[in-house]
């Protein structure tokens, strides 16, 4: 059951992460078209090859409903497969497997997966404050009848930081907590970012002391263990084996995937320290007929250092409770023995809203297609990619393999 591995990533485009204040402002439709154009060029394909579209629904600027129709019309394409994905940071990974599944079902040949994440220009009479107001409660609903509005917000439970912090505290109580091992995740990834021309923290090296000396946000998380939101956006073209054969680059075939959504608030998890990627990765590896030790790199969704630790353990790279030791014993840089987030991860590359998850997908493609200039792994055929939405609420896993 699952994918036969007949669909592949053949091209990608990603805006350089930039601070919101200085990034260009573009309509989301405009970004979709621009990113599609760049990704098609990367693949050596033409607009007319596209017959599928997967896009984000939430936070799409020009529409809240009928987003695929509006985007397809703007692009000037007709599609046999149109889909909106609403899985937060897991959206990118979720878009890829949906595209691959649609292709393997014979619905379509080439699918544009896209998330615009630069700000749109303000209307002449638009109050710039509205966005800050709208974003105030982050991913928390304030709607009447929403459980989190009624049972979380009145106590101050809001946002991602404290949710991830509580997961880390629970982990610490069960398995122990080695602050310097956790900081090393950020440090090794920062090393990688020095070799990616677009990384937002390129040129700023980091030490374990820097991380542990940075401001504590919510115990035990320091500010340098938390991603920085940036403006950006990304697109990936997933195509059939036949189309991939005429693409410019070495395709990255999607040979396994898994997805698991377990809760909205981790407070209601069966076990806060066992994350949904456990199920997702098991399914993905099983589908691909591979195991974690077969991977040449791991591109693990990293909104926080704790996300990386739990994902490494739950995806099966290291037994539960031994992740911190593993991190200390291994060099996680692209030059090391366990290449992790070889672009710097979102912690050092920047997190462009839900398009941030594409940074991991695209890095996997770059490594497999031999396009990771300056940080290219040798003989990189098999890459594990994970995506994480909400507060470990929903996670996805991909196995990508060079063809």
């Amino acid at each position, binding site marked *: 059951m699952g994918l036969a591995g007949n669909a592949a990533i053949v091209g990608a485009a990603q805006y350089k992460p930039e601070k919101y204040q200085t990034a260009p402002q573009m309509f989301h439709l405009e970004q979709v078209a621009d990113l599609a154009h760049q990704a098609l060029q990367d693949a050596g394909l033409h607009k007319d090859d596209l017959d599928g579209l997967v896009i984000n629904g939430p936070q799409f600027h020009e529409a809240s409903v009928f987003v695929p129709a509006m985007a397809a019309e703007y692009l000037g394409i007709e599609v046999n497969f149109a889909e909106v994905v609403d899985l937060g940071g897991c959206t990118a990974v979720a878009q890829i497997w949906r595209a691959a599944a649609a292709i393997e079902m014979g619905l379509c040949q080439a699918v544009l997966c896209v998330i615009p994440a630069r700000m749109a220009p303000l209307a002449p009479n638009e109050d710039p404050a509205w966005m800050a107001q709208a974003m105030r409660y982050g991913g928390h609903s304030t709607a009447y009848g929403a459980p989190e509005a*009624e049972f979380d917000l009145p106590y*101050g439970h809001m*946002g991602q930081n404290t949710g991830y*912090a509580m997961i880390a505290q629970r982990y610490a*109580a069960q398995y122990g907590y080695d602050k310097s091992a956790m900081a090393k995740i950020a440090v090794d990834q920062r090393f990688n970012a020095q070799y990616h021309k677009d990384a937002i923290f390129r040129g700023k090296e980091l030490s374990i002391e820097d991380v542990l000396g940075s401001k504590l946000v919510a115990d035990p998380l320091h500010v340098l263990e938390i991603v920085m939101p940036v403006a950006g956006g990304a697109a990936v073209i997933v195509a059939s084996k036949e189309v991939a054969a005429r693409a410019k680059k070495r395709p990255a075939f999607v040979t396994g995937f898994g997805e698991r959504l377990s809760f909205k608030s981790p407070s209601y998890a069966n076990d*806060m320290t066992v994350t949904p990627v456990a199920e997702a990765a098991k399914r993905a590896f099983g589908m691909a007929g591979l195991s974690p030790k077969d991977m040449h790199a791991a591109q693990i969704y990293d909104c926080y250092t704790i996300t990386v630790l739990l994902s490494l353990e739950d995806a099966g790279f290291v037994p539960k409770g031994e992740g911190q030791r593993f991190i200390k014993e291994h060099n996680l840089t692209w030059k090391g023995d366990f290449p992790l987030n070889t672009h710097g991860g979102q912690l050092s590359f920047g997190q462009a809203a839900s398009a941030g998850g594409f940074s991991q997908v695209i890095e996997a493609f770059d490594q497999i297609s031999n396009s990771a200039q300056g940080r290219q792994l040798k003989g990189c055929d098999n890459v594990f990619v994970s995506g994480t939405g909400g507060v470990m609420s929903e996670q996805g896993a991909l196995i990508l393999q060079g063809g």
Partner: protein
Amino acid sequence: MATLKPMPQATKISAPFWQALKENQVKIQQCNSCDGWVFFPRNHCSHCLSHDLDWKEVSGEGTLYSYTLTRIPTMPEFADEMPQALAVVELAQGVRVNTTLIDVAEEDIKVGMPVKAVFDKVSKDGETLLRFTSVSNDGGVREFKDPLEGLERNDKGQVQVPVSNLAALYALADNEFTPWSNSIVVDQALINAFAELSGDDYWIHTDPERAKTDSPFKTTIAHGSLVQVLQSKLTIALPFEITGFQTMVNYGSNRLRFPAPVPAGSVIKGRSKVQDVSVSHKGVQVTLEMHIHVEGNDRPSVINDLVILYR
């Protein structure tokens, strides 16, 4: 007493939970089909989807499942509780509740520690949040404490509210009007002077003879904007004075309405109330809802939601 922190809005489904807290009880739902305990409140069992649920009183005892200490407020409104000990408590029935721990020293907080409910009265009206504390602490009820209580007063009797005291600032938004100000007369001479100053000399304000026949009011009326600015001549006894700020800026108005006319010769008076207090990166924003009435008229002649920014 309004607190501008987000407050729970009970629904038909959850009302028994909040009502029980008001009565210093923890009630959660249990399924009659599978005996499973359910939290947060639902119209169905989260274990078997049965609709056959009953509200049961429970002890409110449990253990600390996890927690964090907020070193940066999750929302500006919580700056007065810093650091908050945000917590997940697992009740003895196995369900988990998002809450905060109170009255426990940072170093004494341990995952797995036994905790018990505290009924925290967060408003004068008895609205109650469910917090938790160490079982070794006394008392299951935290009574409402008016944040303005105990603050110093100036020689006018106004309570002194430092701009840094967020709890007290929020407590100012209590939706009660001040007593009436002094009264002043708006006569034709004043209206004429304003007409000259502003250039608005429309006959409805300035020509008593024509107004007698042509105006629906049968007399001249004051400019709405004249009455608006006359608020400076009305001494309104605000019960508080905000202190400790560097600058105070009139930030404009959220709403300006002239619902009733002010005929020449009217006596006007005013009153106000604090409509809203909010905190942002810009500073503390206090919205004063100012009403000016013609004496004897219940309908205000001016409603002005004045925004004042302190920083």
